[in-house]
């Protein structure tokens, strides 16, 4: 045993953000999605033969744009980007940084796994989904487009890493 605790150790971001925005005068809390049923698929072949895709909430760098937009996009996995735009997303900017793209978009790590034969291949594109207050936008527009891109790229399994 490493230690004993008297309360939950991990941060509740649902509680924390509700209190934070209430302090800003937003008294109606954000209604996070909750489902009782969870869909589940299994691999149709060994991982060593699978093409793996990667989805991120980070945005592509848009240097020079005064008002960068959050977009739904597919971008080449190789060469892996060395910078991504994360400034306008919610993450802990006091405690850490996003200068190492692999800490949230592990394209290089997955390429190494492919080279080592752990996976069949990395998808030629990775996919960006904008964080959106509107869950219906995500469900009706963004998710179906990500699925279409995954099918176009013959992706067998997907890793999703949000900031």
């Amino acid at each position, binding site marked *: 045993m490493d230690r004993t605790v008297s309360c939950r150790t*991990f941060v509740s971001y649902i509680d924390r953000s509700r209190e934070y925005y209430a*302090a800003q005068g937003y008294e109606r809390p954000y209604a996070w999605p909750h489902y009782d049923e969870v869909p589940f698929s299994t691999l149709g072949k060994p*991982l060593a033969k699978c093409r793996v895709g990667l*989805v991120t909430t980070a945005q592509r760098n848009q240097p020079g744009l005064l008002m960068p937009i959050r977009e739904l996009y597919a971008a080449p996995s190789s060469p892996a980007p060395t910078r991504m735009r994360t400034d306008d997303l919610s993450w*802990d900017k006091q405690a850490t940084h996003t200068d190492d793209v692999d800490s*949230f978009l592990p394209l290089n790590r997955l390429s190494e796994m492919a080279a080592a034969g752990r996976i069949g291949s990395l998808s030629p594109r990775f996919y960006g989904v904008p964080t959106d207050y509107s869950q219906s936008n995500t469900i009706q527009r963004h*998710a179906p487009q990500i699925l279409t891109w995954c099918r176009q790229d013959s992706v067998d399994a*997907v890793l999703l890493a949000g900031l």
Partner: protein
Amino acid sequence: MSLVSRHLESNGIPTVVLGSARDIVEECGVARFVFTDFPLGNPCGKPWDVPMQSAIVGMALDLLGRAWMPRTTVQTPFHWDNDDWRDHYMRVDDGNREALARAGEERRRRQAEAKKAH
């Protein structure tokens, strides 16, 4: 992100979510989740720590093949350098309460102006 994962799973593509906001992902409900108890920003390992990143991505890949039912969460064994971030992030206290209230008012004013301009 969890909603996208659910859509892919519903259409036959197995997924695994990597993240640090455990309650948000688990409330939504996803097939597979690799949880790293870090401040938000580095769900795939500490910056520049290649062995840790490889381990976390490796755990996600393992979970793709090994999970046999949905809502399978695996917690990685890694710790941040300290625990200060747990209390600091989005903290509300007497030191910032007034500033937050002003920031909220300012934001609503800007949004109202933008709405008028359209």
